[in-house]
């Protein structure tokens, strides 16, 4: 199976699904859902195989495919995954597979819904497997328009209207991607002289070594990318689309956005920002660390004040992005290891959270913490899911969130002792709001108005079982994740050694 184009197969499976779906009659509701589920199952299976068959001891890019595509621009259809992107690809598939079942009760225009859901998944897969900036951008933007339509058509208006939320999400992400695109163009034009230009991430990563990218260019280009990826990642101050967007979106879209698409920001910062523009990354790292702390603390405080479950998870995910950012900003192998693993853990965790909120909302018709209570009596399974997600969120050992957070703090502490301490204090606030939510929603006296609510059953259990299991398995055997991530860190490590990035030598304004 050496020559089997595994990544293309993973990418194409949902696309085939989309094609089949577009020729289905609109009324065949059940069949449409079955087809979506089957395609995602196949894609997930292929991804699991890829994860299993990846040779960790060898490291580096594997399953490489490279076909020249627009030769005169230097674009090629280049795919490949390494220890950095493979966990995120797996995350995409796990969450994507779950969203199909979470959306099982979508009756209204289900054909369009599932086509767009699959399109969103294709976009996410594409960004993580592409090794060419052009294709990367192409897939990145593929996800934005379906999100808009899905929020507008299938979303819900509570605090803000769904039209407002959808537009806000779209504009933020697209403006971000405009800056990203500008950054990529600047990089493309500056990295090599005309005639030798390329979008290949691998080749561009060599550009700084042969001295083609001066520090000024790197600093400027990284800034543009930071604006772009920062808004994707909902870095402060570009975060405000996220809570509104998640709250208005249908459950499946919230899961994909919070769980997967957000991570493209962090992934891009490492893959493009750090590996291609190391000096730029070095310059901006202290700023990023500062933003990270603001993210953690500010979002945590705001979360405490929220009453709507979706807003709580929305803001808390912004807060968690701070942990990822500070892990990145510390620019050492341990902290970045932690940041990547944290992306995976947070993705699973927030997707599970949103899935559970979706279930609670379906059954009780409210997401207000104050109107809920004692749900563990009526819905023990949902309560289990909530508990798993919540405990992982506050970093309980034994669940997926603990090891990554711990690792990134250990790595970051050496570089930014003060910032890291502040960020760690965020865990306390996280504990505060998570425990308060769990206590108010799940426990306490039994409320009679919810006695009619049935517990999760049938397809509703799929996401709970799948994502919950992953949280526990990764929590208990973190090596499954960390080993993979670490195997991808070799080029990062080489780069950091070359740059002499040590705490005392850190660049930028704190020099």
């Amino acid at each position, binding site marked *: 199976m050496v020559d089997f184009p595994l990544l293309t197969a993973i990418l194409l499976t949902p696309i085939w699904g989309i094609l089949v779906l577009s020729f289905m009659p609109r009324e065949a509701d059940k069949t449409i859902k079955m087809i979506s589920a089957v395609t995602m199952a196949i894609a997930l299976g292929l991804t699991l195989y890829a994860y299993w068959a990846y040779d960790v001891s060898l490291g580096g890019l594997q399953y490489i495919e490279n076909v020249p*595509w*627009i*030769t*005169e*621009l230097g674009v090629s259809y280049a795919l490949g995954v390494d220890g950095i992107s493979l966990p995120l690809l797996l995350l995409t598939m796990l969450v994507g597979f779950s969203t199909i079942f979470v959306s099982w009760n979508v009756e209204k*225009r289900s054909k*369009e819904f599932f086509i767009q859901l699959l399109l969103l998944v294709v976009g996410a897969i594409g960004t993580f497997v592409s090794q060419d900036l*052009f294709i990367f*951008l*192409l897939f990145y*933007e*593929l996800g*934005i*328009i379906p999100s*808009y*339509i899905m929020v*507008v*058509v299938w979303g819900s208006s509570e605090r803000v209207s769904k*039209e407002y939320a*959808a*537009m806000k999400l*779209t*504009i933020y992400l*697209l*403006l971000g*991607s*405009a*800056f990203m*695109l*500008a950054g990529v*163009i*600047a990089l*493309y*034009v500056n990295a090599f002289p*005309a005639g030798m230009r390329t979008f290949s991430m691998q080749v561009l990563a060599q550009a700084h070594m042969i001295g083609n990218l001066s520090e000024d260019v790197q600093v400027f280009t990284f800034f543009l990318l930071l604006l772009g990826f920062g808004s994707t990642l909902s870095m402060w101050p570009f975060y405000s689309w996220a809570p509104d967007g998640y709250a208005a979106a249908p459950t499946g879209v919230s899961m994909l956005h919070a769980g997967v698409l957000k991570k493209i920001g962090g992934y891009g910062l490492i893959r493009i920002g750090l590996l291609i523009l190391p000096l730029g990354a070095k310059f901006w790292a202290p700023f990023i660390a500062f933003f990270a702390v603001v993210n953690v603390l500010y979002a945590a405080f705001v979360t405490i004040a929220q009453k709507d479950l979706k807003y709580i998870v929305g803001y808390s995910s912004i807060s968690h992005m701070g942990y990822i950012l500070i892990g990145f900003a510390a620019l050492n192998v341990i902290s970045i290891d932690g940041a990547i693993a944290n992306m995976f853990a947070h993705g699973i965790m927030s997707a599970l959270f949103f899935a559970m909120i979706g279930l609670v909302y379906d059954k009780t018709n409210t997401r207000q913490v104050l109107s809920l209570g004692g749900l563990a009596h009526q819905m023990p399974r949902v309560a289990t899911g909530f508990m798993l997600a919540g405990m992982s969120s506050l970093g309980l050992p034994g669940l997926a969130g603990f090891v990554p957070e711990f690792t990134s703090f250990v790595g970051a502490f050496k570089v930014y002792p003060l910032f890291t301490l502040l960020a760690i204090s965020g865990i306390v606030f996280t504990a505060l709001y998570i425990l308060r939510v769990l206590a108010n929603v799940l426990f306490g006296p039994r409320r009679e108005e919810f006695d009619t609510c049935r517990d999760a059953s049938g397809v509703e259990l799929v996401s709970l079982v799948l994502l919950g299991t992953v949280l526990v398995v990764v929590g208990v055997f973190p090596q499954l994740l960390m080993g993979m991530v670490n195997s991808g860190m070799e080029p990062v490590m080489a780069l950091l050694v070359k740059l002499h990035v040590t705490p005392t030598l850190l660049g930028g304004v704190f020099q």
Partner: protein
Amino acid sequence: MNIALLTSEIAVVILALLIIVFDLLMPRQEARRSLGYFAVCGLLGILVYTFNQHGTSATVYHGFFVVDKFALFFKQLFIVATILTLLFSFDYIEGLTHNTGEFYALLLLSLVGMMVMASANDLLTVFVGLELMTIIFYILVGFDLRSIKSSEAGTKYLILGSAASAVLLYGMSWVYGFTGSIVLSQIAAHLTASPAMLLGLGLMLAGFCFKLSIVPFHMWAPDVYEGAPIPVTAMLAMASKAAGVAVLLRVFLVAFADLQAYWLTIVSLLAGLSMIVGIVVAIWQTNTKRMLAYSSIAQAGYILSGLLAADAAGVKGMLFYAVLYMVANVGAFAVTTAVNNQYGSDKIDDLSGLSQKSPFLAVVMTVSLLSMAGLPPMAGFVGKMYIFMAITDKGYFWIAMLGLVMSMVSVYYYMLVVRVMYSKEAKNEQEFTASVSLRIVALISLIATLFIGIYPGPLAELANAAARSLW
């Protein structure tokens, strides 16, 4: 003298005359539909014939008229645009109830004007081609006698257009006065940077910018677009703009290349202004045609910005953009026509619930609009990449930046249209009908937009070859 080089223009003229004759001979209104198909078939034949001229590079009439890859590229573009416009406009034109045959003939004659513009190699031929096209557009814009808006638009276009032509002609006469020649290559040989020369240059730039609806010469566009019959609006937006680009490129890059230092700054300002004004003002439009008019002002800004590179890469970007812009506009105007045939008006609101009634047309509209906004994997993305990379190379990073940011803002109003189609309920339960030829055009537009976006290679090579033939 090689008259054979003029064959395709002559063929189109003959086709137009034949249509006028047949129109007189055919008594019944219904039979006139076949005139449209006749025109389409004739144009297809001429399109095939033009490939014959591929690779030739020759001039006739003492260098007044040139046939090269650049001219051919635009001629084929104009012919394709006319064919597509004809195809989706049959129902609409029949609805005009009078002079149907003339409509086809006039459309073809305006095509001749554009083809002459693409081949024009001296100022006089430029002017003749331009006027042939524009005068016919004056008639076509006011063609809908039932509509007061159409007559108003025709008058407005006539008055403003004549003024612009006068300005252009005035500029040309200054240039002639100071260089003693009207042939582009000879003008280039006698260029001086005297103030009078620059005045002529500026006046000519203003005249061309009017045709391109570049801010601040854009005021006519929204009203004229709104009032004109939709097929005419489509031709105005796609083909006449591309024709303007063709002459602008040839005149400025062949004749005035040495004065770059003077016009580049002005062009960059005009392009930037067009992007901003076109996109910002489009947000408040409630009429689909007006919205497309403002969007086309912005698109003209994008195309014009390619001139800043003043090299083959930039021109390639512009040619590529002109094609994808046509392709996307064909889709948008086809859907607008379908909706107009259904409800008899062109408010954006009329698109409500289109995704329910005709999911296919809704997808076509969405893809076309997003292509104009420049989102991947639609063709617009690649077009913007080509242009912005070319101008970034020459140090115009700020305008690339502006263009990118504005194009993302433009997504805002395009998305408003998408929202109307997808989330609003349809106005009534009426079955939505669209003719087969219209659906075919929509399908062509959809496939082409996606294909060019995903595999731009072949078209880019064509554009590149055409661009290089200018030097």
